[in-house]
């Protein structure tokens, strides 16, 4: 669990990175869409 025993902190850590990854995926999928 990334060394983070508290679920709410683990979730914040994962969602921060996950949110940035989501932005990358959105950008790639919609690269040529308007």
């Amino acid at each position: 669990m990334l060394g983070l025993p508290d679920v709410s902190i683990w979730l914040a850590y994962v969602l921060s990175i996950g949110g940035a990854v989501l932005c990358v995926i959105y950008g790639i999928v919609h690269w040529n869409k308007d």
Partner: protein
Amino acid sequence: MIYIIVSLSLYAVIMAVLSFIGYRKTKSTSDYLLAGREIHPIIMAVSYGATFISTSAIVGFGGAAGQFGMGLLWLTVLNILVGVLIAFIVFGKKTREIGHKLGTNTMPELLSQRFDSRFMQGYAGLLIFLFMPIYASAVLKGIVDYVAKYTGANFDVILIVLSVLSAVFVIMGGLKGIMFADAFNGAIMFAGMAFLIIYTYSLLGGVNEAHEALTRLPDMSGVKEQTDGLVKGGFSGWTSMPKMGTPVWWNIVSTLVAGVGIGVLAQPQLSVKFMTVKSGRELNRAVLSGGIFILFMTGVAFTVGALSNVSFYNETGEIAIKAAGANDAIIPSFIKMFLPDWFGGIFLVVLMAAGISTLNALVHSMGTALGRDFLKQSLKLKTNTVKLTRIAMGIGLVISAILTWLSGKLDVSMAIIAIGTSLFYGLCAATFLPTYIAALFIKKFPKKAALASMISGSAISLFWLFFVQEKTAGSLQICKMLFGTTSIVKGTALNTFSMVDAIVIALPLSVITGMIAWAIIGNVRESEPAGVLNSAG
């Protein structure tokens, strides 16, 4: 010292060159106000991020994470999901589309053209011009404080030099110069923060090991005595959330949800960036780099701030806040003690870049708010827009510099930087957000309801900021002069309200006022001029 002088000189030269290129490429009013509406999506995303993230976001909030722990990462989650994904995809596309359709150059202009109200543009422009200097002075103070601490130079001298540099960059280069400089500033910020997180994790033996060491820290010898005060406030370790409902919990959650999380959607200096790209496709592409950029700014600052406790404890036996002496000193002290010497000079430039990029955008917005929105469009002055905007930028910057100088004389224990930032974010959210949403998405929303929401939102939040919310009313001093107290509800049955952020009260009331006015007035009829957007809104 040699590292600092070399890095700062190089930085100043490159900034001057970029501003000059912006000046040479600026041919029209639209170039000066909107960078010609043809900015590359990556430059737009980095410029948005560099404007959003100021020195205080890195040093101030990073220091807060050093004190309160990794719970602040929820702010990074909000920054990415609301500040990038929702802002770009939901608000950005519609703002760009309507802005292009109506040919608007600023956020107040977009609102006033959409609702066909010259008064609205003047009112919004004047409000931005009057209160943005408080935010700008907080940003400016963040840079000056840090440079003064790091180089030992005089506060007033640095303030004057930085203000003059910013004036030259912005007044000469317009938005084109600013956005070129932002891309450069953003690249420096990204590289500096990426190095910082990699170095910090490797210093502590890896990601898992670093987090585990931080989790164990509250049980180490001598730590309990140091965290006594924090634990009474609800603190329960740097890798767990504080106890719900305690002062520390409220501090984190209200800062999160109230100030920065929602306020970001209605910032005039940020929403103008959406109008600088030529189609919705560019905004899709901008999302790609926007999310990563914000992760590497606030995500890194919060993680390093919290992890610094382990390094400080291993080296000195003290936790970060005790070893550094103050909240704002945690990140600078950590860099000075644990990172290579050469990185100190680089990090100073990273913080300069963060502050200057935000300051430039604010000076540009203050200039367009007074010059374009109030004087040119609302009062119909004959002078041309660029000239009026340049004069207004100069005035806005001088006011901000004077406020910064005054705040340097105030009691240092007041978190003036964080207060100045959240004050402006809250005021903008209550004043503009309901009308901005209506302008973009509710075709039938009437002009008078929009005006009612804007005026009530600004009046209620100003009353709350100046007289009720102790954090702001105390440092703005007007309540004390009139009533001899730091908050008019202090010591009364309503004492709890003195801790509540203005946005929590003013934004819902602004929405309710707009809805009641809409119910009374009814929908816009097709024949009325306010239906200017029947095809687009």
